[in-house]
């Protein structure tokens, strides 16, 4: 399981990376916005994408849409971990095809639950 973590703040990437490692996911890579993440996704055999929303350059919602529009990537599970907390934003992300949505600040338990739920649903 190879996971790409996309967030413009290295601190948040590191927190997510450590939480994922705790959950047994040790194969992770990082990118600091959508425009650096997309080429990595296109060339890197990633299985799962965890992305923030608010980033300079290409935002997480744009990345989400770009992934869904890419024939080879469109089925990749995507979890948004973001401080964006407006209802219309969550609806927007859902309509764009996000698989899970976690609002910051979040706990390790919530992240675990959402990731497990995504894989449970994919497995069924």
């Amino acid at each position, binding site marked *: 399981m190879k996971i790409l973590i996309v967030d413009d703040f290295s601190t948040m990437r590191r927190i997510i990376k450590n939480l994922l490692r705790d959950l047994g996911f040790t194969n992770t890579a990082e990118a600091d916005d959508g425009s650096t993440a997309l080429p990595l996704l296109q060339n890197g055999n990633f299985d799962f994408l965890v992305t923030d929303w608010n980033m300079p350059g290409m935002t997480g919602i744009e990345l989400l849409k770009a992934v869904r529009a890419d024939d080879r990537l469109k089925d990749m599970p995507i979890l948004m971990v973001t*401080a964006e907390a*407006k209802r219309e934003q969550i609806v927007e992300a859902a309509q764009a095809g996000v698989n899970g949505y976690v609002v910051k600040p979040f706990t390790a338990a919530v992240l675990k639950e959402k990731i497990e739920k995504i894989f449970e649903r994919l497995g069924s």
Partner: protein
Amino acid sequence: MTETDHSDMSSSDQPESAAQSSDWSELKDRARNLVDQLESGDSSGVHSAIEELNEARDRNIYLEVGKLTRGLHEAIVNFDLTGSMTTGGDDSDKNESQMTNAQDRLDYVINLTQTAADKTMDMVEEGIPIATELRERSQSLKVDWERLQRREMDPDEFRDLYKRIDQFLVFSGDSSSELSEKLNTILLAQDFQDLTGQVIKRVINLVQDVEERLVELMRVAGQVEELTGIVHSKDNPPMRKEASPIAAEGPQIDTDKEDVVSGQDDVDDLLSSLGF
């Protein structure tokens, strides 16, 4: 001419109204004079009365324009955010605008919080393997210790256990002091809260200051518009920037707002209502 002469001007600009009422009464006097001249049929008197009336009106406008120009100038000078305020006139900072200064301050906040977060996570990342090793070694010792208590151990195994217990005692002592040291480092790394708090307060002060000056500038500009007769149509309010539904807004400070979720449970409810 004085306070007794109450005109029905708005009371909001009281300082002006005394001067204004004297101007008004001058205009009234001249107008009465004009009517008198008209009624008496003195055409040259009428002309000079009209001229006097014109003069009085012009003088009035020049005075007002002068006053407003001064006000506007002062407001603009006050709005100049270069240097003077933050550092108490320190020459070295004169070249730097307060806005740049505020940006630097906020960058400093980001740097400090980043450093603190990195330091804390360094300590945690180094500490977790130590804790894990402590747990694993004590667990494995416990298994053998229980075998010893049940007298299931041969002398060779006992000698090995004896040595391992000795090593473990040394290791656990060293590890505890190492962990305490890391915990102390984490504790000290929290000093950013104090430092960033102070810096953010100063930036808040600057923003408030800018707001006050902007309001003053708007007030003076409004008087200029009034005098020059610039009218803003109420039907055409300035274009408000509509927030695009997909634009990022950063953390919501007020989660009580109706269009903002109050937490993860709210997110989950919303998503499940959408069929998730």
